[in-house]
């Protein structure tokens, strides 16, 4: 049933989209997402999908048309990166607020300026408060698996929120890796048929979507959205459970790697997590109690689970591949540190900003972070709350 193949991240995501066979895809090319659009175009051109492919003139229109299609009652998708995601900004909120279960791969790329085509997480992290569920992927396998799970999560009646599935631009999107893909029929059965309650193309029950909603109801609608995001936690785990039955591959809010007895640990997302795991193995071989938490679900933010997972750690580094320019570190750092606030122990939590604009992160970089943590663990003190890793001073 599972087939072992070699695909690039973009091919894997396009493959997932082909198997999902959405009714509508509206997309605009942008490096490094472009290949997804190209692959998908060829599926359409060769009649391998039932999809109407809308070749919009911008990402703003990509998300707008996707919203229109989803509102109409279709399973609708798009894909983007960086500036394209930024151009969608306004409509991201509308997709989430209208409770449209859109699935969108985001191939992480740095935002301008100066213009840069390589990986960091400034794009998706910037969209973290738009009401979208966010799933991060370490490699092509996870990107593929997350895409398929995303459909089921998004469309769950307790959720009905759009989902972003991210992977690192070039590092994953353009790299050929091994992965296992599921057969078409199993994907089809796994995601099921999309049956919305209310949709535009219903002559019997016409609806109005996107009205003017003022102070008398707007707040209630936002409260519902907050609840849906909360519900998403259970649903994400439920879907992961079903996915494990199908594939044997295990997913949760995060992957805890040698974390149980760890005294020093790193929290990290996406492709650099793989590099960091190799470093953990080396440190373990040296007898050092190093561990790692690879965050998969950033929205909803699993703060209780993270706190529980690192409760025995003495020194923790949160690694962010994005800046918030808040003077308080990266976007993962602040909520992680806040999640640990109620804990009784004296855990030290520091932040490392790394890999901006595609700056390569090598094992030595990660090893340096663990070395710092070792020192913090011993002294109970840190020199810098926020460190820029791999930047030239």
């Amino acid at each position, binding site marked *: 049933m599972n087939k*072992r*193949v*070699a695909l*690039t991240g973009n091919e894997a995501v396009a493959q997932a989209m082909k198997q999902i066979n959405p009714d509508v895809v509206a997309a605009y090319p942008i490096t*490094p997402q472009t290949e997804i659009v190209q692959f998908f175009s060829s599926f359409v051109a060769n009649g391998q999908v039932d999809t109407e492919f809308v070749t919009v003139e911008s990402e703003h229109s990509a998300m707008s048309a996707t919203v229109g299609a989803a509102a109409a009652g279709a399973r609708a998708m798009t894909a983007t990166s960086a500036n394209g995601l930024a151009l969608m900004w306004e409509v991201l909120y509308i997709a989430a607020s209208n409770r449209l279960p859109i699935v969108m791969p985001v191939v992480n790329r740095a935002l301008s300026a100066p213009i840069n*085509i*390589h990986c960091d997480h400034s794009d998706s992290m910037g969209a973290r408060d738009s009401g979208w569920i966010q799933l991060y992927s*370490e*490699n092509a396998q996870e990107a593929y698996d997350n895409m398929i799970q995303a459909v089921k999560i998004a469309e769950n009646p307790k959720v009905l929120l759009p989902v972003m599935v991210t992977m*690192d631009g*070039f*590092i*994953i999107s*353009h*790299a*050929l*890796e*091994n992965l296992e893909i599921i057969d078409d029929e199993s994907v089809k059965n796994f995601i099921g048929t999309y049956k919305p309650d209310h949709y535009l193309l219903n002559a019997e029950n016409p609806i109005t979507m996107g009205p003017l909603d003022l102070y008398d109801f707007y707040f209630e609608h936002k409260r519902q959205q907050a609840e849906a995001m909360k519900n998403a936690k259970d649903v994400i785990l439920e879907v992961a459970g079903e996915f494990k039955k199908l594939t044997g591959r295990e997913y949760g809010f995060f992957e805890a790697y040698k974390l149980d007895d760890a005294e020093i640990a790193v929290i990290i997302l996406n*492709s*650099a997590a*793989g*590099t960091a*795991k*190799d470093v953990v193995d080396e440190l373990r071989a040296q007898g050092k109690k190093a561990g790692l938490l690879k965050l998969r679900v950033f929205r909803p933010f699993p703060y209780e689970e993270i706190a529980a997972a690192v409760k025995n750690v003495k020194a923790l580094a949160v690694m962010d591949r994005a800046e918030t320019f808040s003077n308080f570190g990266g976007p993962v750092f602040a909520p992680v540190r806040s999640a640990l606030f109620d804990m009784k122990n004296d855990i030290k939590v520091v932040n490392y900003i790394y890999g901006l604009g595609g700056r*390569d*992160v*090598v*094992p030595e970089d990660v090893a340096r972070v663990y070395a710092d943590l070792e020192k913090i663990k011993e002294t109970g003190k840190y020199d810098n709350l926020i460190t820029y890793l791999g930047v030239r001073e």
Partner: protein
Amino acid sequence: MSNVVEIRWHGRGGQGAKTAALLLAESASQVGKFIQGFPEYGPERMGAPVTAYNRISDKPIRIHCNIANPNVVVVLDPTLIGSTTDVAKGVPEDGIFIINTNKSPEEMRKKLGIKTGKVYTVDANQISLETIGRVIPNTPLMGALIRVTGIIPYEAFVEDTKKQLEKKFRSKPEVIEGNLKAIERAYQEVKGE
């Protein structure tokens, strides 16, 4: 990590360095290896020096960064040697160089200015010209690489490459045949010191 073979490909935009890395990875994957194949992306256009990479291993590969110390360096275009590209950069003492040139390994060693490592040469341009009808050095170089490194069994590699080429060139059997012949010749003709 030590059982990972790391390969760096040097070429010019349009010569197929990226394609070679991806094809090799695909073939290695087919014989059950764990693989990575990825180019280094920049704003390069046709003609500019480009780099592509492979990791091939018996165990799952988790590391995601560029390759600094490749076990094998393949040079698709000998004019890159001595240019701003340092093709020998980071190569360990037992590193392997496979160079597309009609010159001897000894001459190339001089040109590379290295004392350690093993140097192999093969005239992939001439081979591809004679077999495929155009200068496409990437496929013959793969043949040479298989011979020198033994990373994939030759028969399995040929079989898989054939399958992959069939997907791409279904309507052009002569292209498939030419490429396979190029691989075979390079496999035979690659010279060491």
